[in-house]
């Protein structure tokens, strides 16, 4: 099992599904799947890590389709990829 949070800058992968339950904090995990869907994450789409934040390589900026979305690795760990 690989997750979006495991990728390095430049890596590409395809989204397989969401596992918001992987987040330790229940409050944090609630709505996370809906939010990811709403902003444009979706099964079958290709993602690529474009940029990494200056400290601890966090947050990350990923390309999905035509757009760039910024998120933390903590959130990216809910996105399962190929």
């Amino acid at each position, binding site marked *: 099992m690989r997750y979006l949070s495991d990728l390095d800058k430049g890596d590409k992968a395809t989204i397989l599904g969401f596992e918001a339950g992987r987040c330790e904090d229940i409050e944090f995990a609630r709505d996370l799947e809906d939010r990811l869907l709403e902003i444009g994450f979706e099964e079958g789409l290709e993602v690529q890590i474009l940029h990494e934040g200056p400290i601890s390589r966090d947050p990350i900026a990923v390309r999905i389709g035509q*757009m*760039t*979305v910024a998120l933390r690795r903590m*959130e990216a760990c809910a996105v399962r990829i190929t």
Partner: protein
Amino acid sequence: MNIMTETSQEIKIALVGSPNCGKSSLFNSLTGSRQKVANYPGVTVERRSGTYTTKDGHNITLIDLPGIYSLKDRTLDERVSRQVITGVHKSESRPDLLLCIADSTNLRVHLRLVLELKYLGLPVILALNMRDLAERDGITIDPKILSRELGIPVVATVAVRRDSLDALKTELSQAITSLTPARDAVQAPTTRELQKQARRLSEVAIMSEGTQHKVTRQLDKILLHPFFGIIIFFITLFGMFQLVYFWAEAPMGLIEEGFRILQGFIAEILPDNWFRSLLIHGVIAGVGSVLVFLPQILILFTFILILEATGYMARAAFIMDRLMAMVGLNGRAFIPLMSSFACAIPGIMATRTIEHHRDRITTIMIAPLMTCSARIPVYALLIGAVVPNKSIFYGLFGLQGMVLFGLYLVGIVSALIVAAVLKMTLTRGAAQPFLMELPKYQLPVLRHLLINLWERARIFLKRAGTIILYSAIGLWALAQYPKKPLGATEPDIYYSYAGTLGRYLQYIFEPLGFNWEMSIALIPGMAAREVAIGALGTVYALQGNEDQITQGLRTVIQNSWSLPTAFAFLAWYVFAPQCFATLATVRRETNSWGWTAFMTGYLFALAYSAAFVVNKATIALLA
């Protein structure tokens, strides 16, 4: 029901769309300067409305609903939008028509909102915005297919181009003539189901996928670079504050000169009586010393508006996220904090994009520590008076600009410390998702920039014409009467009501090195910070100090304030307890007197201690 029978009837159209779809830009283009910004009562969701008249004489009212991704009840923005669209909002009547705006370059995501809107019972028109950008990126969409599949009119638009606006207006006019009455909203399917439909639709309607915006990709390589990105970020902020000083110098000189000429002119034509004193020492000295700062405020707003319009603000949030995380906040909080540099009120209002209550409270609590533009007059006056105007680092930077930057920095650092302390105590809790779209870079549109700038200038001038004018007159009266007793030795004002009040306040502020003139000025300074300067202007003018008239307040301060006193006053203003307008906003936003009192209390304590320490330290250093 035929709406056409009454031609005078207003048609109300609501603009709906996701963040970054170019909605505000389209709104600005449709309404031009015929718009006003207010708040929905009770909540601080901004209500932008504007009007235009169609060729066949209909009066259209446009309301620009906040940018939203969906219509769930998660954020205030979503709630208000939903209430307005379904007609259950208390103060906003239900619109007749929805104009949904979608970003053509990102149709798949934006279509989901269009589908969701169709369940709400109002006629919908879809504007495929940013057609030009889509074309450049090689994306081709067939509006006809989309229109057929969705069962609603679809127009491709470029917000800033006249011909495309005309097409949209024609479509809107047609829709108005065949308006169907609103139906009740029905329950929309789940996000996942809507997503599936949106994807199928976009597969049918998008003829060519294109590539991602090339300029954005290239620019981000530099601007989000782990090293150069940060350097550029800080240079941008630093340069911004240097230029606020540098560019404003000439226009400020002109304004000052103008008021001096006016004072001289009035002194010439009017006999020496109370009315002449009211005009020269009350109105002009008070209002004039605040109006002088209009250029600096406009320059700062110009920068902030440009950073927002170009899309750089979201990058700043990305760069700052990790740093914000260290104090328990997320990068998203950076945007409201950045707006607080202009004014804490829009900043505090912008916190509504932070969904989580605790994070929102923390951000609101520290927003006033971001140096707002109303403090610029105070800083500028004192820095101008006590910091020498010379260059350092081989003439690269001005020392005055450096000090100004330093004061901003002190504010920022204190904000981070306060946030960290709050997150460890009162607002402790789990971290919140960052998750935000980084929009395409765009050139700002001059016309829209000017409309927004004018709005800011208007608000500032209105304050100068009302609250600042009244307090200048009020203070003039308090400082004029009662007249000094026979045989008195001090200046007139010393024996007036204001002088007496100032001497009482002196007991509180004396340890900070403040003189009684400053103590008086602090009271109207609570109404609005920049008023403190106007108040000083009035107080000194009435002391019979002719320097004030010939050389301005700066010189008076240079001659009569000691260095420790001036520095303590600066330190006071870094933390200075809020102006009333901000406190009222905090009360409304947090819906809690407790948090409002807490903010007032902690800021007062910080301001007092900081001014005390700075005063004593400067005295020790000079000794």
